[in-house]
């Protein structure tokens, strides 16, 4: 004789028992993935040592806020140019002759070094200039600069 009933007494699992069950589950998972977990601990340790862990932690906590700030900030008009420039810059990189630029940069660096060795009070007269043209290093630089001017002017 079973009448219709709807009353249900919930099974209260004691907290200690639930903790024990959860621990069992975790213990098993740890045992199954021992290697990975040990490596993981090493990784955590290195991250902690350099402070990355704290930064990441702080960022995760306020991920949405941080992203919001960032997006709101970069949406301002003053950044429009930056964003438009970014991809342009990428394409520019593609067009540049890096080898030549590297060579030229080397020369510019040398020049800067020389320049820095200059006595602050030293001056150059017209005569010095004419004389300098005879110096093969200066002559080479002037010739290259003139070539550059010529190339830039070409349509």
């Amino acid at each position, binding site marked *: 004789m079973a*009448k*219709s009933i*709807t009353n*249900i007494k919930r099974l209260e699992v004691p907290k200690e028992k639930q903790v024990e069950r959860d621990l069992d589950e975790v213990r098993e998972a740890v045992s199954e993935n021992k290697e990975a977990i040990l490596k993981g601990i090493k990784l955590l340790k290195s991250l902690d040592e350099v402070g990355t862990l704290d930064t990441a932690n702080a960022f995760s906590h306020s991920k949405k806020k941080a992203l919001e700030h960032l997006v*709101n900030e970069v949406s301002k008009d003053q950044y429009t140019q930056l*964003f438009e420039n970014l991809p342009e810059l990428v394409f520019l990189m593609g067009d540049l002759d890096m080898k030549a630029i590297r060579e030229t940069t080397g020369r510019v660096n040398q020049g800067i070094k020389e320049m820095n060795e200059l006595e602050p009070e030293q001056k150059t007269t017209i005569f010095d200039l004419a004389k300098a043209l005879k110096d093969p290093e200066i002559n080479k630089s002037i010739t290259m600069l003139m070539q550059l001017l010529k190339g830039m002017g070409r349509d």
Partner: protein
Amino acid sequence: MLERDHTVITLNGKEYLADPGQNLLDFINTTEEQVPQICYNESLGPIETCDTCLVQINGKLQRACGMKVEAGMKVQTQLPHVHKAQKESLDRILENHELYCTVCDYNNGDCEIHNTMAEFGLEHQSRPFEEKPYNRDDSGPFYRYDPDQCILCGRCVEVCQDVQVNETLTIDWERQQPRVIWDNDVPMDQSSCVNCGQCSTVCPCNAMMEKGMEREAGFLTDQEPGILKSMIEMTKKVETGYGPLFAVSDSEAAMREERIKKTKTVCTYCGVGCSFDVWTKDRKILKVEPNAESPANGISTCIKGKFGWDYVNSEERLTKPLIRRGDAFEEVEWDEAISYVASRFKEIKEKRGADDIGFISSSKATNEESYLMQKLSRQIIGTNNVDNCSRYCQTPATKGLFRTVGHGGDSGSIEDIAKADLVITIGSNTAESHPVLASRIKRSQKLFGQKLFVFDIRKHEMATRADRFYQPKSGTDLVWISAVSKYILDHGLEDRTFIDEWVNGFEEYRQSLEQFTMEYASNLTGIPEGELIDVAEEIARSGKVSVCWAMGVTQHMRGSDTSTAISNLLILTGNYRKEGCGAYPLRGHNNVQGCSDFGSIPNFFPGYEETTDDEVRSRYEEAWNCEIPKEAGKDNHQMIEAIHDGNLSSMFVIGEDTGIVDANINYVTAAFEKLDFFVVQDLFFTKTAEYADVVLPASPSLEKEGTFTNTERRIQRLYKVLDPLPGSKPDWEILQLIAQELGGDWNYDHPSEIMDEAASLAPLFAGVSYERLEGYDSLQWPVAADGTDEPLLFLDGFPFEDRKAKFFPLDFELEYDTSEEYDLHVNNGRLLEHFHEGNMTYKVEGIVKKTPNPFIEVSEELARERKIHEGAEIKLISEAGEATGVVTVTDRVRGNELFIPMSANGKSAVNFLTDNRVDKDTNTPAYKEIAVRMEVVKKKGKSPIPTNNHRRGQPVPQVGVKVEEKWEREDYIFPGDQVNKDG
């Protein structure tokens, strides 16, 4: 050797063989040449809106999708001006669609716009994106429309008009800025939209999107709308070239693959057997994605399959076994529950014998679980008292087919129904009960000249679409079918060759038809003689006839006989053994076919082999190492009777709310009260569970593996989408635990092992194995040992000794009618959006928003006569009981007929009214034969059907998207001409 015609065409200077009449774009897609295509989708056919597939055909730029291959055709896809024209079309698409892929929820590797642009190598956009003057339509519960992202490809319109054939969506090409509109431009929630979701399935981008995906799919999409807008702005600024944009968004899409799981499953609602991928993120269901390869449904779904899955994560799921103690249930651990169940069954068996226990399997559970339930019953307990809910619905159809053609299932596939010249539905509200299958009929009728005749007492959607619609008096279908058969015979219109070669019992059958004159039929059914003659002539004249029937036939006292009459008529006209023909008793539940197939029936082992057959029985006895009783056990109905008679004291019911769905529930629940021991296994604490001694928490289809068999006899695999909700277990595991506790040597690790065992024992499934059912592969039984299946039955003859079908003679007597006291007839059936008693669909928030209440349909005539209005409250009283409910006045019913949806619960449950009348041959309750009287409680009130219900919508039927109207616009220039003009 098979000769095939070919058409020779030249593509980029190379000759190819194409199929005659093949769509040119389809053909190009079989070669290595690549042509962009956005609106084209194989399942939908050419729509011709996007212009991206322009190629040069015989010197002229044309849309490849709009052309068929012709002999000698010369096609060029790579010339510079072809490329230019394609680019022009792609540019136009990007004018309508912003590419912010990385922060778009549709960026899952399958965005067709993204992929087409990337493949084409489009680096720059010539014209900027322009915002449209429309807001998003977020009004519906399941999907939303973003006009700003819509490229007006028209796929959604095509699918709504010509595949689903609900005819809600159109594109208004006349306005300044065209857009997709619902009905006559109302918010989607107020429209005729039935939420089949197919528009969101076919949309190539994020314009029509499932709401479940929103802010869930991407790593960066879960943002407040303002932030998201800023992020979109930001991605837009980085728009110099699409290359980098695609690189970033593709990487993000690849990351999503890690997090979003896509698992194939088979729908757990109706018998159509739709299959699809379910996208999940942890336990969250993001969307349901059907697949062109889904064998039963292709890209189609209905509201339940596409959006009806909330019940799986319902708070109301049972997560602990319950044992009745005193006047309460106590939650217990599994060990305790299993050992208690086993010891009680053991005790009852020892004290009162195995036949004192009864088992009811679930048509919601898998084939493997049905197999285990009958094995538990027969092997472990030792009784044939095992049955399933097909007893409530389709057993009479099975009986009718067994009598005549020998296999109790659909004789062909859904594809055959679509191919028929004439489809007749009898007592089937197909559009609501089998929506995806109904759409196939609706499409064939709308586009391909198929004829549709509907016989039903209620004017449902199929009736309003039918070429002929008749409303025979309830329970008299056998009469008109027999009269039509007699007419065909009397006028020599039968298929003589077929009968001579393939059929026995003609003479006796001919004599049995004598009484069914047209006059007699017309008097009994109320259909005029002339009309019946026309029907007979049309059936005889049609080359291919398919008949679909359902509960309107079977749930009568002569359900088996009427099913038999249908089969007789099909035999008479030679409508078996060929494509596009046959008998289709549309199965109600997802696995009602399979549950019977795999042996949960009192007189059959799996594969319909009789328990009384000594050879068969000894095969199982040997395999299972036990003795099995020879005589058939009790069916559901007899079990309930036996409880009242004191001959059955214990029951085990899986996944069936018998206390709601069985007829005459007062009588059924009174029986439950008398049980000594009652076990109920379910997802929820059902009405039936309230009477149980033990309730076991089961897992639904999404949480387990197994197979279902649909109405086409198609066996399909479901994979585990989610892990079982902690505390619940798949039915097969629970059954195994009980069997083991009772000493059974069961050691199944996986459902595939159960199927292997069933296949080894039942010849009908000899070749069924999980390997042959991988992914979207399926098998339609019978399956020979080598894996050959039979999509179309009887090609090698009928499964009787001489391979011939049988005519089965019938007679008729009208046993049910309304009376002076009980003057109204109650009909009942499914609603599209609620399944069965509604225990799953009432847990879907969106469905409840659209259809929150049960209702009682009353005709306009009757409402006038009783002076009641929309929203009135009435009490219906039958001989068996009474029910109350709220009225909707509608022309779907006429005269003194009422309709109550099966999903009506609480006090409106129709089974308070049904009685113990049954089909004389199968004990299926005569649910459709209820006479009641009405008492008016309140004359009018609030309508039970809210204003946002699709029944109140105003569909706008048209064929396709009407692209011609786009072409006629003044601002439209064919990209081919544009290119020529620009030079």
